[in-house]
């Protein structure tokens, strides 16, 4: 077994190196492209993702996997707002996901509310909890914030298990109805695909709008240097809380979708490992890079399925891949630096973007 694993490690190592180069080349091509082509690319991606289920419906397995992948895209992007843009290490994102899922489940089962109202309620309630958690904890930094958010996620999970009258405890809530739109009840996965695709587009859109506004720059300024950001007139507490609430609200919506998609929620769906998976997706994809996080989420949700062929080694290979990836490409699959048209920091000073300046004789670095 060990021999097999070491062979796999070596293959993966070189595989990543090659894929790495490929990703860089693609990113470089895309960033240096004309705006006209960029726009065309965008349309092609949108159209492809819209017609995809018409082809994929032939294989229910592929369709279902892509729905789950898109669900994780939404979750990872919502975490990316907090972790990638504002640099706040939140390790309890599954709490908001759980709150959203249970809100939708309870409203739809007990009050027979429509799916669309429930999912908005999910967003509001998860956002409220984001505010509730954010105000006291966002004063903390790095590790301390991570610990408090882990604690919060555990509390949420334990409440879900123990508050029997409301949540039915470990038995969970079964029989969550399907959403309906204009009187049509969405029964098959093609419908679900379009709902989650809509949610994913909304999240991508929101991420880009935020990133390109003064809010996005503010988030990044806070991530880079909080004291300097304050000296630039940026209210860092407000921005951190804001991004936390937005991220929590989107995760809540994703939770609401999850509840109707699976028709059943139980506390085991929202464990700590779920939060860790989301953090992995963001970091593997590239902190703060929207295309990176999307691909990170897709890779990490599709990969376990692809690895079903090597059943025994599935999670071992998954783990090895993560480790190797972080050794080889700590900046993630698609790094922000490259998206800005430069090369990554850890490629040393052979850097096209900065070598002109660095080679000046009086350079101090």
């Amino acid at each position, binding site marked *: 077994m060990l021999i097999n694993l070491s062979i796999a490690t070596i293959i993966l190592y070189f595989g990543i190196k090659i894929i790495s180069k490929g990703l860089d080349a693609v990113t470089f091509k895309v960033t240096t492209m004309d705006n006209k082509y960029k726009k065309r690319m965008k349309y092609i991606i949108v159209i492809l993702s819209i017609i995809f289920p018409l082809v994929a419906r032939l294989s229910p397995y592929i369709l279902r996997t892509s729905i789950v992948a898109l669900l994780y895209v939404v979750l990872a992007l919502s975490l990316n707002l907090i972790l990638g843009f504002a640099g706040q290490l939140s390790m309890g994102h599954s709490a908001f996901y759980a709150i959203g899922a249970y809100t939708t489940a309870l409203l739809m089962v007990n009050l027979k509310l429509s799916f669309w109202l429930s999912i908005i309620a999910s967003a509001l309630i998860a956002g409220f909890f984001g505010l509730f958690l954010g105000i006291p904890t966002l004063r903390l930094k790095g590790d301390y914030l991570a610990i408090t958010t882990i604690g919060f996620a555990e509390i949420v999970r334990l409440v879900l298990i123990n508050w029997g009258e409301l949540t039915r405890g470990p038995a969970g809530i079964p029989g969550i109805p399907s959403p309906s739109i204009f009187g049509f009840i969405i029964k098959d996965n093609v419908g679900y695909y379009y709902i989650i695709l809509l949610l994913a587009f909304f999240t991508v859109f929101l991420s880009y709008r935020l990133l390109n*506004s003064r809010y996005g720059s503010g988030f990044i300024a806070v991530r880079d240097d909080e004291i300097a*950001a304050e000296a*630039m*007139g*940026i209210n860092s507490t407000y921005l951190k809380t804001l991004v936390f609430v937005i991220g929590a609200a989107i995760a809540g919506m994703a939770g609401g979708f999850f509840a109707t998609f699976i028709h059943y929620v139980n506390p085991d769906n929202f464990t700590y490992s779920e939060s860790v998976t989301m953090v992995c997706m963001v970091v593997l994809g590239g902190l703060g890079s929207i295309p990176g996080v999307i691909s990170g989420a897709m890779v990490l949700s599709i990969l376990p399925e692809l690895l079903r062929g090597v059943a025994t080694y599935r999670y071992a290979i998954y783990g090895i891949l993560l480790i190797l990836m972080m050794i080889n490409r700590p900046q993630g699959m698609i790094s922000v630096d490259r998206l800005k048209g430069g090369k990554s920091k850890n490629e040393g000073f052979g850097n096209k973007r900065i070598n002109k300046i660095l080679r000046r004789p009086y350079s101090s670095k």
Partner: protein
Amino acid sequence: MKVLETKGLTKSFGGLTAVNNVDFYIDKGEIVSLIGPNGAGKTTFFNMITGVYEPTKGEILFLGKEIYKLRSYEITLEGIARTFQNIRLFRSMTVFENILIGQFCRAKSNLIDTIFNTKRLKDEQSEAREKVQKIIDFLELEDVKDEIAVSLPYGIQKKVEIGRALATEPKLLLLDEPAAGMNTQEKKEMQDLIRKIRDKSYTVLLIEHDMKLVMGISDRIAVLDYGNKIAEGTPSEIQKDKRVISAYLGKEVG
């Protein structure tokens, strides 16, 4: 007109009084320097004005308004901008983006504008970009404006920090050791730059160790030693002041 005035400003850290009972003022359009040996309390004084520390005692008036209870970002909004002794540029941003951040605190667009990308937001953004471009022209940073700021030489980084502070449209500019670690040529450039900034009707408060620079550009100098203000006056007065000389060089024996 007094831009900034402190009355009996005191800051203690436990038993140590870093700044003790300092009265100080700056008039509009002046360049005032704050000097003193290492550990004299200059940066603490700066940090109190900019809201990083809260004073133990005393008041700070900016254009006649109490500001010592405000938080750091609110003070910037009032019109005080600063640079840092150890450069604190945003490391993932280009020069242009770094300076643009300074403009954002003057923007009025809200979250709704951001999500719907309204006309107001677009106008505001292009206006901010124009203003930043003006600052870049003023500081002669055109060549490097799209470089990642922290990858640039030290002297240029200092300039970017000044640009970033100017972008917040301050009435008072606080410079914390702008010429530290520079060579003679760069120091000379910095001196010219500070003069140019003053000529654009900014008021400048400077902390600096380089005496040539301080004596060359200051209208007035205040000297701190062990947290106390020991002298204040024009450069020539300060050069002759006995207490200043003894603070820097020690007393003559006998």
